[in-house]
């Protein structure tokens, strides 16, 4: 039975330290390529985005760490001509098969969240929720490294327990992204 895994993010706990991005790069051996690709930091499976709201003096800035949303109906999977991206039946993680990828980059055009990245081996790559760590019973690198405990993950039931009375909003979208955001207190 499918127990879809999802991310839960608490923006009030994020301190914009980028440790999630760095941990993700370290765990998945994603090189920086700062000099080879000026203006970029190489493939990033996770990125911290900045959202601004309000007007001075009531302006606020939110930092939100986003990666692949492991959507219920992913655009990347539907667009991939070679069937290299699939969803695991047991936990709904969207994974890509490097041996099937033809490197056409079409998934990166299709994804609304910029999740699939062109990798150093000439094929597309994306967040797989650190499957290797999950299979060892450990947490994904981003979750484990988050200094403020802003990033959490689990099944929808587990997430609803973690919310514990606070309002949480699911990311809207036609692809049913599996990403929940806790409202400010």
């Amino acid at each position, binding site marked *: 039975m499918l127990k879809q895994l999802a991310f839960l993010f608490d923006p009030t706990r994020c301190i914009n330290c980028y440790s999630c991005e760095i941990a993700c790069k370290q765990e998945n051996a994603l090189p920086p*390529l700062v000099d*080879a690709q000026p203006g970029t930091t190489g493939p990033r499976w996770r990125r911290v985005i900045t959202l601004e709201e309000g007007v001075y003096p009531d302006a606020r800035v939110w930092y939100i760490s986003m990666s692949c949303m492991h959507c219920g109906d992913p655009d990347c999977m539907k667009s991939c*001509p070679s069937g290299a991206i699939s969803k695991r039946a047991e936990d709904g993680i969207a994974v890509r098969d490097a041996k099937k990828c033809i490197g056409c980059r*079409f998934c*990166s055009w299709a994804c*609304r969240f910029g999740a699939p990245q062109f990798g150093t081996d000439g094929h597309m790559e994306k967040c797989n929720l650190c499957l290797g760590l999950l299979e060892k019973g450990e947490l994904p690198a981003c979750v484990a490294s988050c200094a403020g405990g802003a990033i959490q993950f689990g099944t929808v039931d587990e997430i609803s327990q973690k919310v514990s009375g606070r309002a949480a*909003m699911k990311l*809207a979208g036609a692809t049913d992204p599996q990403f929940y*955001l806790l409202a400010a207190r």
Partner: protein
Amino acid sequence: MRPAETSAYFVRFPHYQRESEWPLIIYTVLLQSAVGTLIVGLLWPRSWQISFENLLVTLALGAIGMLGAIGHLSSPLRAPRAILNWRCSWLSREILLSVTFVGMVFLAGLIYLLPVLVGSESGHSALVADVFRVLAGLAGLALLGAMSMSYLVPTRPVWNHLDTSASFYTGAFQLGWAVSATLLFVHVQRIEAAPLVLIACGLIVLTLLRIYIILRVVERLRGLNVYRDQPYSWLTGRIRQIRIVLAVVGGVVTPLFSVAVMFLPETFSATVTEGIWILAVLLLFLGEGMDRWVFFEASPSVIFPPRF
């Protein structure tokens, strides 16, 4: 970092490079012109048709275009996998239809040649070849649709509109008309005034339609705020101006000139007409290539901000 060290990065990661538009420009422009050439060849009256040469040119354009498509892939050897997800991927359908189109054109040409290869006359081979030409034409029409659907993605607002489809269809028929006309004028030394005027008028109408679509695209994108880092001026600047000039010279001025040349002495006018139409084709291909280059370059991807 010193240049030597920078190049060392590329040696370590030879596949990590910026997405190149050239293979896609070659693929889209040549396949579209191949489809246009075949269909215009089918629709023209029998007396204007140069069937076998038309098939040869269509096949050449299609084959070179397919090489461009393969050049776009990081793993060209896995190219056959690209058709596996045809049930839901427009790119898969596009590749499948491209292969079907080029394959049908190849078969039609082969069947035309069959009597020569076998050494016997058969009235059926031309008929069967025509059936394959019609099937290839239908596959080509579907291919243009699938090709444009591949670009209708929400992350690229510049492409995500029906005018992308209109651009692809009008571009295909404009180029196809010009290529078919050039084949006719190269093949037939002296052509009557009426067909020449009609062919010239046809190209002018298709060119004006193509320019109208280009202007519609520019008008639609005016005011879109996605150009913070990708200059809107690319769509109205010098490159587009040159593109319009190429279209006008190639698709309006040269056909008119070829009509005027009819009044020259017969031996002279045939050579000049031939040269004029070859020039028109070159200018139109160059213009369409520039158009497609802007299409790919000025299309910033928009990663959706979270909406809760």
